[in-house]
């Protein structure tokens, strides 16, 4: 596809130039890690099944990064581009609409991946994070979660009439995902009632899956999570394709 490489590069540059987006993608989670690392260290703790705070926080914070890109980055940027007429301008060229969407998703995906890599490096270098999983398996789990959440983000962008509403709706959805699904506060710390409720929040399945894969558990132990995220992905893609608007 002609121009796709340059378009992806452009999307990445634009992302990096947006300070708020970059902060929540690349800096926020490592910052939390440093903060809680300074308070609790990473000593093995029976409360976390013999793991340290950092060991369980790194895979959980991966969900945190995914939520912020999927529910804050994508809806706001997509709706704002639509509102300003940016999407219309690209439609007047021979560029295929699918190529434009693909370039957007590729840029978001790569930035999310960078955020995760920074998080892992901080955990490893700063606190000797333990990892006993399979990297390929973790990458697959990450990719599944990312695509499922991005699809939801596009649905929010398409259904919201304006960028401001997209922002508000994204925030309203993002906060419970961040705080009730174990993405920021470990599930072990949450009261039982919240943990029961959390199962209905998609992000809790990302956290469970990533924490499991992180310690080398097999996918067969996480069929529920895989099914939920796969279902969200398929439903989200279907809805996003049906509702997406260029103007």
């Amino acid at each position, binding site marked *: 596809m002609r121009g796709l490489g340059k378009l992806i590069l*452009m999307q990445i540059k634009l992302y990096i130039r947006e300070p708020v987006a970059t902060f929540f993608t690349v800096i926020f989670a490592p910052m939390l890690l440093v903060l809680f690392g300074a308070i609790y260290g990473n000593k093995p703790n029976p409360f976390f099944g013999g793991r340290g705070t950092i060991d369980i926080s790194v895979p959980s914070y991966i969900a945190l990064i995914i939520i912020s890109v999927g529910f804050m980055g994508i809806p706001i940027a997509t709706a704002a581009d639509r509102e*300003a007429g*940016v999407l219309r301008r690209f439609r007047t060229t021979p560029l295929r609409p699918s190529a434009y969407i693909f370039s957007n998703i590729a840029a978001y995906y790569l930035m999310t991946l960078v955020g995760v890599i920074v998080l892992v490096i901080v955990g490893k270098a700063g606190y000797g994070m333990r990892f006993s999983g399979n990297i390929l398996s973790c990458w697959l789990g990450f990719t599944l979660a990312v695509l499922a959440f991005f699809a939801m983000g596009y649905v929010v962008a398409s259904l919201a009439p304006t960028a401001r509403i997209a922002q508000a709706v994204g925030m309203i959805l993002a906060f419970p995902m961040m705080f009730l699904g174990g993405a920021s506060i470990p599930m072990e710390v949450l009261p039982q009632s919240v943990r029961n409720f959390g199962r209905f929040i998609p992000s809790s399945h990302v956290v469970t899956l990533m924490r499991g894969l992180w310690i080398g558990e097999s996918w067969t132990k996480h069929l529920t999570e895989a099914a939920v995220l796969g279902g969200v992905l398929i439903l989200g893609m279907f809805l996003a394709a049906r509702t997406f608007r260029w103007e």
Partner: protein
Amino acid sequence: MQAITIDNLAKSYGTVRAVDGVSFEVRSGEIFGMVGPNGAGKTTTIECLEGLRRPDGGKIRVLGLDPQRQGYELRERIGVQLQEGSLPDRLRVGEAMEVFSSFYRKPITWPPLLELIGLADKSKAAFGKLSGGQKQRLLIALALVNDPELVFLDELTTGLDPQARRAMWDMVKGIRDKGKTVFLTTHYMEEAEHLCDRVAIIDRGIIVALDSPQNLVAALEAENRVVFSVKEKIDAAPFKKIPGVTRVEQSEERVIIYGKGDGLLVRIVMALESGRIRFRDLRTEQPNLDDVFIALTGKEMRD
């Protein structure tokens, strides 16, 4: 050779008939203007031609292609400046040129184009930091990166100051002089009169007139007006006797004489001289496209 043929185009939004049976042809190499008030159907027409909107009825050929079925092929060969098109604020001028160039099979080298529109020194500037005129010039440059045969310019100068507007007119003439066809819309009659080889006047989705601006004005057979100021009340009788004069009006110091024919001005000045009437601020007012619009639609152009 026709760049555009459009036959009985119709498009409604709900119960509103935005375009109601529009037909015309645009010749290769001309600047063709569609003028009319806001909401007359200009943008709907242009967007149907660009393939961005699906018409309810009618037949359209642009460069021999059907914009709906051969849209991608068509967009290789046309340039488009949208009325409500924009770029990301943080995208830089040079980056925009580079990215848009990369979408086409045969892009031109873009740095000379930036030179031409006077933005060569702004290559590293962010789109959001440009002035209104600079943004508009960049959007036009983007419409030219594929060396198009046909350029669409929708409300090119809306929101620009008079100086920027003049500069834009020169740019558009430059595009035509390179042998390209230009299709533009405007709600400024002055712009259409100055710029267009032929003009279609559209009102409420219908073409009410189509010709060169000169022919449209001439067809009106409207009167010229000679206007001047005097100190005291004048006697209208000697002026009414002048051949061609139809009417003389005076309100306060201001006198307006209506009439037709060559030599009208000379005869009026001679009558002023022989009557020893001291006058000042004498000028003539010719009918223009605004008058054509009023005559055809019975209303003023709304801005």
